[in-house]
């Protein structure tokens, strides 16, 4: 099975780890907003039993610095470039898309319509997609949240508004409390829940949308093995993005690609390329 493998937005910095970025069929940037953002105060991450929580809060340099500083360096990687775009109003999304529309090196724009860690725009996902559509002729992927009662209807609405594809799914809101104090572990309170626990949720979302609209789908949420990736492909994804799994294994994309190619659905744990106590080596 040959399926394009991307990183999930916010889960890789290609400029710090170019070798990792080169293992991907396309690199997706962390979400870029109109203005620079420092993001949320730490602690921003917490491991929970079956996944992790994050409340990064879209820390990014803003579209101006992104275009003038990051983009030229990213272009040199020789990896197709997707830019994730966020905002706090349809106008902001449109402004950022307009800027990116002029950038030759950007192959695709992913609209982050679903970050659980910031206040959201008042407009609907479809309205934002429509505004972005008017601002750029680049391929537009709408990234949606699993915390949506009728996701198929939302998928139809963003398709109607001009999306060329869907990215499914973003994190879902989760909370961890310190057992000793009863207070949230993350400074912001709740965060976005990602990792293994998300896989069946992602599969259901992809399945529902694949039946509702005729758009390509980048599937993500808890993918850590070829078997996981194959599951999302069977659910209807035509490409796979890897997020949380990259933290423990920067070479996850290559490993998962190999596992998919060998097409044997072995369970994740058995697939791990690991080092013995008597043989540590760098990943």
């Amino acid at each position, binding site marked *: 099975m040959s399926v394009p493998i991307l990183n999930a937005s916010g889960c890789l*910095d290609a400029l710090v*780890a170019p070798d990792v970025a080169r293992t991907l069929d396309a690199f997706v940037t962390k979400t870029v907003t109109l203005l620079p953002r420092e993001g949320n105060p*730490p602690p921003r991450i917490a491991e929970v039993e079956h996944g992790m929580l994050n409340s990064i809060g879209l820390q990014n340099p803003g579209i101006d610095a992104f275009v003038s500083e990051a983009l030229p360096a990213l272009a040199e990687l020789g990896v197709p470039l997707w830019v994730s775009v966020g905002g706090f109003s349809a106008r902001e999304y449109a402004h950022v898309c307009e800027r990116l529309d002029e950038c030759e090196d950007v192959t695709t724009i992913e609209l982050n319509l679903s970050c659980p860690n910031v206040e959201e725009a008042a407009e609907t996902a479809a309205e934002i997609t429509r505004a972005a559509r008017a601002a750029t002729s680049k391929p537009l992927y709408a990234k949606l949240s699993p915390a949506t009662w009728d996701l198929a209807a939302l998928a139809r609405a963003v398709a109607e508004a001009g999306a060329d594809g869907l990215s499914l799914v973003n994190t879902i809101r989760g909370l961890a409390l310190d057992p000793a104090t009863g207070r949230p572990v993350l400074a912001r309170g709740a965060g976005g829940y990602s990792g293994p626990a998300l896989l069946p949720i992602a599969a259901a979302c992809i399945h529902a949308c694949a039946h509702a609209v005729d758009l390509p789908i980048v599937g993500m949420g808890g993918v850590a093995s070829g078997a996981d990736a194959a599951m999302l492909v069977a659910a209807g994804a035509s490409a796979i993005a890897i997020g949380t799994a990259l933290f423990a294994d920067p070479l996850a994309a290559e490993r998962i690609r190999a596992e998919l190619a060998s097409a044997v659905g072995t369970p994740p744990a058995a697939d791990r*390329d690991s080092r*013995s*106590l008597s043989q*540590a080596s*760098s990943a």
Partner: protein
Amino acid sequence: MEPVGPYTLLCLERGGLESGRPGQFFMLEAPGRLLPRPMSLCLAPPGELAFLVEPIGPGTRALCALTPGDAIHVLGPLGNGFDLDVERPLLVAGGIGIAPMPYLREALGGAPAILGFRSELHAEAACLLPDAEVVVEPELVTDLLGEDPGDVLACGPEPMLEAVRRAVPGAQLAWEAPMACGYGACFGCVVELEGRYARLCVEGPVLR
């Protein structure tokens, strides 16, 4: 696997890994946990990498429970270590902050050290740094710094590092923060640095 007071010294065969610069760290797979855990290199005997681990939660407990022959993922060396180009090095560590010191002292070709611990049991770890001055709470490492401590290289809990910074403004300090990736991917490990949030795994863990 060797107990050192309440800590465990974990020795891994080095394979193709570099040992890096003192103060750099490695991400170690903690069996059964989703995310790896950052650990400073403690010692680099030929062919090995040794880490000193304090079991304080599920990840560090899993690491301390490893048995010979077990295999774990290791990524590193990562981050920025100590600047070794110093004239009068003085090592200052609190608790598990002793972890990077043996390798650091070796790289410096020897250096005096002040170690602080919260109990006599913890203080047993001082054996990793013979000849160091050792204090146990309520006495604090900063009590021993004196007027002109030289070039301080320190690692320890946040309140200790803050106190050292106040006492010795130019000190090199190795900080900690929860880390998901250790290689700049997640923006989870930020600390406030000159009014902005900097990734400790990229710009640290050693900061001035």
